[in-house]
């Protein structure tokens, strides 16, 4: 109705003229995008390694060289002392200690058998497993090389490491590995779509909560409540500009994601914005609901920040949902942010279609209706 347009116009003027709000809408999200995308990474590279070489032969040196040249490991120290290595581990200076025993070369020459020990600082959980894996692969590849060197004849070749000279007579499996959607294993491609969701959420919830709380604080809300303006019209007028703003921020964020971070956009943009539109209704309704509970802008800010924190940390944005405890995974189904993060990644990185995101999208839509209805009901022009 016409009333909505009049009020919405006033809203836009408020937003544009309030520097604090503008900062929150334009500057803060962009800043966060840059800082967060650089901070939020679990990449494992240049793992600091300490070598304890008790053998000091060409064979042991060969292994050490393989480690150093692998690109995964950075050798920060070497000695013959196990204690020194232990110190480094305790101090947190190294993640991996490679220990080569005294009889390494002689054992290999005589018995075709060698032993090495890896000590991994497993503080970091799953990263330790990956570190161990890389290390083991280097050792195994070296073993193959040594086999070829000492006994130039039929040898088993690990195809994905070295160039296979197809030899007959030895059973072997050639493995090829393909990393879909993210060949370079770039963490930004994982994080940035999720961060865009966070951006949009901030605008949605934080701003709408503050907005209405401010009117309460100033007393202008009372004035509006005395007019024939209905709840629905009031809410529509308040939320509409923020809805548009949220989508606008998404556009800006996407442009940055593509140009600065090289995040792919494989799926349909229309679908993305459609989903974003639905999601924004959810986020805005939550902000609205918060505003009905508080009296001042500060409280609005604090409560929304708090709730958003929880939502964001449990949404699979930073840490994968698959890693969460099972019961938490179920609870997170109630978290609208989770669904939008899933959709955003599916659309942008995996090129999903509507059929693929059917479920999270339906859930979001149901939420949009439910929470909006709840918030509207909660909002009353008349105090009981």
């Amino acid at each position, binding site marked *: 109705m*016409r009333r909505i347009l009049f009020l919405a116009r006033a809203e836009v003027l408020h937003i544009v003229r309030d520097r604090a709000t503008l900062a929150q809408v334009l500057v803060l999200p962009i800043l966060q995008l840059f800082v967060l995308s650089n901070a939020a990474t679990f990449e494992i590279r240049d793992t600091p390694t300490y070598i304890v070489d008790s053998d000091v032969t060409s064979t042991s040196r060969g292994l050490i060289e393989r480690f150093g040249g692998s690109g995964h490991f950075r050798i920060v120290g070497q000695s013959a002392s196990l204690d020194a290595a232990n110190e480094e581990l305790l101090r947190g200076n190294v993640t991996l200690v490679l220990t080569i025993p005294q009889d390494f070369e002689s054992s290999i020459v005589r018995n075709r058998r060698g032993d090495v020990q890896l000590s991994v600082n497993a503080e970091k959980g799953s990263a330790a497993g990956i570190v161990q894996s890389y290390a083991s692969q280097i050792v195994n590849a070296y073993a193959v090389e040594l086999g070829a060197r000492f006994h130039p004849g039929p040898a088993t070749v690990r195809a994905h490491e070295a160039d296979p000279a197809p030899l007959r007579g030895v059973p072997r499996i050639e493995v090829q590995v393909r990393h879909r959607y993210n060949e370079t294993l770039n963490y930004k491609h994982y994080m940035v779509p999720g961060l865009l969701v966070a951006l949009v959420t901030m605008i949605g919830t934080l701003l709408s909560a503050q907005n209405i709380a401010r009117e309460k604080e*100033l007393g202008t809300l*009372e*004035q*509006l409540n005395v*007019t024939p303006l209905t709840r629905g019209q009031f809410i529509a007028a308040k939320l509409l500009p923020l809805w548009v703003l949220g989508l606008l921020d998404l556009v800006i964020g996407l442009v940055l994601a593509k140009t600065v971070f090289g995040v792919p956009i494989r799926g349909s943009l229309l679908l993305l914005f459609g989903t974003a539109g639905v999601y924004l209704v959810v986020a805005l309704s939550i902000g609205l609901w918060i505003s009905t509970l508080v009296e001042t802008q500060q409280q609005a800010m604090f409560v929304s920040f708090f709730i958003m924190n929880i939502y964001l940390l449990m949404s699979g944005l930073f840490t994968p949902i698959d890693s969460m405890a099972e019961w938490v995974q179920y609870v997170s189904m109630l978290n609208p942010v989770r669904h939008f993060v899933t959709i955003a990644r599916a659309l942008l990185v995996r090129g999903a279609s509507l059929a693929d995101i059917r479920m999270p999208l339906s859930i979001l839509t149901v939420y949009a209706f439910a929470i909006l209805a709840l918030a509207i009901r909660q909002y009353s022009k*008349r105090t*009981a």
Partner: protein
Amino acid sequence: MTAGLAIETRDLERRFGRFVAVDRITFDVREGEVFGFLGANGAGKTTAIRMLTGLLAPSGGQARVAGHDVYTESEIIKRQIGYMSQRFSLYEDLTVVENIQLYGGIYDLSNAQIRERTDAMLSQLGLTGAAREYVRAIPLGWRQKLAFSVALLHQPRIVFLDEPTSGVDPITRRQFWELIYAAAARGTTVFVTTHYMDEAEYCDRVSIMVAGRIGAIGTPAELKQQFGAATMDDVFVALARPAAETAGSGAAP
């Protein structure tokens, strides 16, 4: 509905928990009257006005405004009333014209109507030059007058004013009351609350609330005679002191 009555209440009541802010008040306001709703701070005036304007639900009793029941028809009432709240009601970060346009749109005035009435209002107030100023740049007295005019923008039958002249200098107060008379002359009922007893003299009839109850009601002349007082201030003192002594505590919101 009793004809000719803009507002009628019977035993109107509002409780907050165990505290009774408005204690079964009964009064009428005739159409076209300038009715002063007086009382000390905390006597229950604002609570009463909020019930009449549909901002607060009564705990008990009956009330009709502009012929409609406040319990069931408050939205209809809102179309026919104007309101100027105690806290400032215009948006400070919008210009004068933008504020007027906003309320015009909310009350479903056509664009033409909005334009006409804006021009008329600004020239009446002498604010034509300040049309594009932000409201926060305008001095307090002018703002109050502007807020009042905006409350009348949609030509309501009744206008409720809650302490409209608080914090304003005497000259501006005088000008404000001239605006009130002008509105009344056009047939608008004016219901105004104030704690300035001298303003009571300007009203057609007044009621004085003491600790949630109506202590007295009538024309200023009647009341002065009733209490043997020279000014309305004296009337109030005569009323308030015994009540303060017996009641003891309790300030109504």
